[in-house]
């Protein structure tokens, strides 16, 4: 599963960790996060993220 980086603040979404505080458990792929999901660190939308690696 691919990690994604927020190009606004550098936050890295790691699917192995997920975003449990916002209801997305470990194992949630970035691609499966809803379009309304925003960067937990700076609030920008998904389309500002890029795939890492």
């Amino acid at each position: 599963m691919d990690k994604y980086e927020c190009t606004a603040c550098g936050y890295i979404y790691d699917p192995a960790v997920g975003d449990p505080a916002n209801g997305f458990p470990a194992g949630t792929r970035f691609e499966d996060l809803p379009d309304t999901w925003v960067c937990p660190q700076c609030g920008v939308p998904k389309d500002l993220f890029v795939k890492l690696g």
Partner: protein
Amino acid sequence: MKVLIVGNGLAGTLAAKTIRELDDGAEIEIFGEERYPYYPRPNLIEYLAGRLPYDKLFAFPEGWTERQQIGVRLSETISRIRPAERKIETQAGGVRFYDVLLLATGARAALPPVEGIHGPGVFALRTIVDANELIGHLGTHKRVAVLGGGLLGLEAARAIRAREKEVVVVEYFDRLLPRQLDPAAAAILKAQLEKDGIALRLGAVVREILGVGGVQGLRLASGERIEADTVVVAAGIVPEVALAREAGLAVGRGVVVDDQMRTSAPGVFAAGDVCEHRGRIHGFIPAAFEQARTAAYNMAGQEKPYAGTVPLSTLKVAGLFVTSVGEIDAEGEGTEALVRSLPEAGLYKKIVLREGRLVGGIWMGTKRGAAELGRLVAVSKHVGALKKDLLEDDFDLGEIL
């Protein structure tokens, strides 16, 4: 349509990306003063801590701007803009004409009026150059005084601590994060930071940086001396308005823009840390993002208004999650604040209401509900009878969104 953008930071880069999405045929050129491609500024903190290698600073994959057909000129300083002629001039003697221009020149680190602040051993932390110079200096020095106990000061202090250097944060105000936290929350944060080995001096006014040919210490207004061999200045930002001012644009503390991000000169827009909207310099990422998007739409000929960005800060410091949004004190008619506090657990939750609507809050010690709180405040959600329940650990704020 010929689009020129001055500034290769978040606002400039995001505006370019958005215009490209809206207009396939637009010619887009960005001029950046730094010699580095765009990078998310917060990455400098991890870089300073030694946890992020240099090549990982840049976020966008290599070749991204070329693939988007966005021209980027690095190490290019714009010397003048001439809105009446729709042209800009570069320091190297180049001239470019535009249909629309975006000023996204950002801000520089504010230097407080302290004697010795321009001497060696004193660093800002805005750019890669700043970070490299500081990292180099830390190779042979070990006692750092950070001037400023705000967001950047605390993040920088943590990063420097990760390099196993001694750190003292010297803050002018009587509490840390004065704009984001009330006294009670700030006290919890202070206790946590001190547990983590970061010394703090509050209500401390620095008058002089002592030392010849290098830093030897600080002298406070109280007469007290603080030992240090390095100073990091994290005392706010100053918008880079010189180009706009020289061209006669309306400038307050920042370049004045309206709700469409237009400056006082036709065809010239501004976004990000450089601009002043409804009297405010926002100076943080969510605002730069929304302003850049708004500017891009309007530049591309599509009306899109901007009404401001609710201040929102999140940080994790000394293992403590801290979120602050909107108004943090109940001031004025019809406002009230509700608090739930467990200082030993590092927990502090506060919501501020005006006529029953959420206008702000502080969420400390947990991430759960923090993002929802931000969204609820952004829409001034009326919470009525539920208000007390919002502070409970098991209440799902997402339910009332």
